[in-house]
């Protein structure tokens, strides 16, 4: 350890070594001379710094009191305004309390504590002798166990150790049920009414005017006690009406719509966000998560974005009372792809 003034000059490690050995280089002039601060020489300046530090600590006290004021004297009512004020006072109080202490200490350290930079030697991390000794000790220990000479012991031990962790993995089996075919079915079934989300009121075909769109759930979803969100996460549907001439149903799907009214799964085939945006002019559905864009006039084919598959269509019809109903469940799993999907 040493004072700044004896900073070793000409420590050349910081200067070029690789490739520059043959070139003359600048010598390290050593640590620059120390410069005194005002407070080091002028007692009045030191006194002033002392007072400044004390004032900063005083500000901290005021901050803490401000916190108490906010906590005890702001009456919360039913508006969010009083909460905002209280939050602001608590925050300001804490901020002053903390900043007062913090800036006070830092100012104290900067202005009044010794600011001599000192230089300390680095020691070699570990000595070569230690390493040699360590290597020998490990070698001896291994030798004494005899593990190298007795492969039977070694191999059975390896086998046992390799197998032993598996119970710890297997134990996680009961974290959840096996998928079975849960992902292939939804609540929709033949004759299930299409009802509004979230109110649950049924929809007449005549309610669906040209260009309109409805967020739809299956009838009965709201009455579920268990698994409501799980069912909803698969069953939500978007219902829209287009000019029938714009629909280009493929073979087998000609009767899945009713008077230009079509129903498509609302769960994005990318990674499952609700495809909630309907652009009436272009007949596009847009997923707000990663902007997959589906074209209603092409059976919701992907025309942009990261999704690959079209949104599954729900075949619909009208029942005897004029309400929209499903003809069946979806004909394919809804939502993101999964390995077993096929």
């Amino acid at each position, binding site marked *: 350890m040493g004072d700044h003034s004896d900073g070793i000059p000409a420590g050349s*490690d910081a200067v070029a070594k690789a490739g520059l050995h043959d070139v003359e280089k600048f010598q390290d002039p050593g640590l620059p001379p120390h410069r005194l601060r005002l407070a080091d020489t002028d007692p009045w300046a030191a006194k002033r710094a002392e007072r400044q530090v004390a004032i900063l600590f005083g500000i901290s006290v005021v901050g803490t009191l401000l916190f108490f004021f906010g906590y005890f004297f702001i009456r*919360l009512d039913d508006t969010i305004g009083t909460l905002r004020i209280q939050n602001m006072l608590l925050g300001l109080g804490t901020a002053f309390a903390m*900043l007062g202490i913090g800036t006070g200490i830092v100012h104290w350290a900067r202005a009044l504590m010794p600011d001599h930079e000192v230089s300390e030697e*680095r020691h070699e*991390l570990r000595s070569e002798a230690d390493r040699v000794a360590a290597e020998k000790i490990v070698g001896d220990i291994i030798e004494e166990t005899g593990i190298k000479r007795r492969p039977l012991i070694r191999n059975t031990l390896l086998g046992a150790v390799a197998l032993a962790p598996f119970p710890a993995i297997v134990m996680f089996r009961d974290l*959840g049920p096996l*998928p079975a075919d*849960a992902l292939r079915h939804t609540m929709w079934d033949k004759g299930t009414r299409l009802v509004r989300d979230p109110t649950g009121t049924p929809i007449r075909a005549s309610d669906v005017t040209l260009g309109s769109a409805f967020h739809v759930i299956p009838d009965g979803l709201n009455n579920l006690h268990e698994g409501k969100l799980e069912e909803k*996460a*698969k069953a939500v549907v978007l219902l829209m009406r287009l000019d029938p001439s714009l629909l280009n149903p493929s073979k087998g799907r000609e009767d899945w719509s009713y008077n230009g009214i079509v129903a498509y799964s609302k769960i994005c085939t990318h990674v499952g966000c609700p495809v909630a945006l309907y652009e009436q002019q272009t007949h596009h559905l847009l997923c707000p998560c990663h902007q997959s864009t589906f074209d209603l006039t092409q059976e919701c084919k992907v025309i942009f974005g990261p999704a690959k598959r079209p949104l599954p269509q729900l075949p619909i019809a009208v029942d005897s009372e004029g309400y929209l109903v499903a003809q069946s469940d979806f004909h394919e799993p809804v939502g993101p792809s999964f390995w077993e999907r096929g």
Partner: protein
Amino acid sequence: MSAATESTYTPATATGRITNFVDQRVGGSGILREFGRKVFPDHWSFMFGEVALYTFVILLLSGTFLTFFFDPSMAESTYNGSYVPLKGVDMSVAMNSTLNISFDVRGGLFMRQVHHWSALLFTASIAVHMLRVFFTGAFRKPRELNWVVGGVLLILSLADGFTGYSLPDDLLSGNGLRIIQGVISSIPVIGTYISFFLFGGEFPGTAIIGRLYVLHILLVPAMILLMIAIHLFMVVVHKHTQYPGPGRNDRNVVGYPLGPVYAAKAGGFFFIIFGVIALMAAFFTINPIWNYGPYDPSPISAGTQPDWYIGWVDGALRLMPGWLLGIPLEWNIPLPWGVNTLSLNVLLPALVPAGIVFTVLFAYPWIERWVTKDDREHHVLDRPRNAPTRTAIGMAGFTFYCVLWAAASSDLIATHFHVSLNDVIYWLRALFFIGPIIAFTVTKRIALALQRKDREIALHGRETGRIVRLPHGEYQEVHAQLDDYKRYKLVGYESPEPSDGVPNGNGVVTKQERRRAMISRLFFEDRVAPATPAELEAAHAHAPVHEQIEEPERLKEVSH
């Protein structure tokens, strides 16, 4: 340490008596002797690691407060607290209790905002701290392992941030989980099973919040604590690096002693960080879950942003097309037992960018070591300009990250600048590939230019802006010469030259060695050698007008 015989040392002060008591029972004076005056180099850029440490402490404090009121249950409940617009709405108990913390526990909202702002600052400071370590070459021998520990800490902090973000079970966090579930489903063979096990059945199930809660408040913070302990232990063993400058070399460490100056500054800094976070929590609302409402699979709010540290993965998901030039990126593969689905459009963006970033990050110390064949210990840092290729690589990586992060806001960029969303994506897809290359080239050029400027100043001094007329009538600007200390700062660096392939024992240059030589050329072909005394002399002979810089100014520079 003192002998086991009768103590002859009689302490004179109260402090001395306490020390004596403790030391004779458990020891400790040795530690104090070792650490009390340990020297720590000081530089503003060493602050980021401290910020990370302090924000973590604040996370522990504010998080523990939250645990006293938060209930991680996904059971159904009806909100009945004092926030009127949500009265009577069905929601999970988790969401309900988070609303209660916000509206009915005094100071609860404040604590939530402190917790969330510190989480953002924590992850940000770790990232910036890593950039500092990278750009200054502090990861070189003997600190490679501590670099790896730092990388693990970064990953752990992201994990804790994400698990925490999901806890309130509001619309936003639920959609985040939905995306995770979709990504997990794309994993071949085991994806569906992982999803069912993680969520305890179909998404969203009733298990996930409770499970994330245990990870968030127990497992991950414990691992972070352990890693921080190892990290700091290694910092003490290695002693801190220092910036190059007069009097500093690889065999010494120059700075302030721990007590009192360094400890006071560092301790004071904790309170300052706490104060700044309190200010942010006072004035800037974060995660106002009462505006989003409880999670429901049907609604969604467009234009919302994930926290910054998760955004880049979301951005990657956005950039990947589902169809590329008419070719689908998801296939149904007929296998003997049936048809299976492989969704590369989800799997690749979720794995590849993060995979590249973290692989390069962890391997970089060894990559550079292999290229430079440099086995020396380094305790003096590089100024980033003096390692142009490394700096360029770092900026390329940073740009890569920024492109992905920007992609996560593609919709906001489109609406803000009134351009087509599709065009924004097309541009970002192009930038994903060429952005890092441009960044590499530009950064390297800038670094070399700065080095040349340093050389110029070291040899010819600084321009003062004062013009004088020479006796023979010529006008010239006065150049102020640097003093020895300042000049040394500009010339005291090494500039390695590319190394040719070295033949091995049999006298052959192996293929691998040739490859190394090629990369070495890429690293060091363009180089600016530090100025030499001979050059300085030559320069002086040619420039008649200069003056010695005045004393005080020079001192200001070296004592910061």
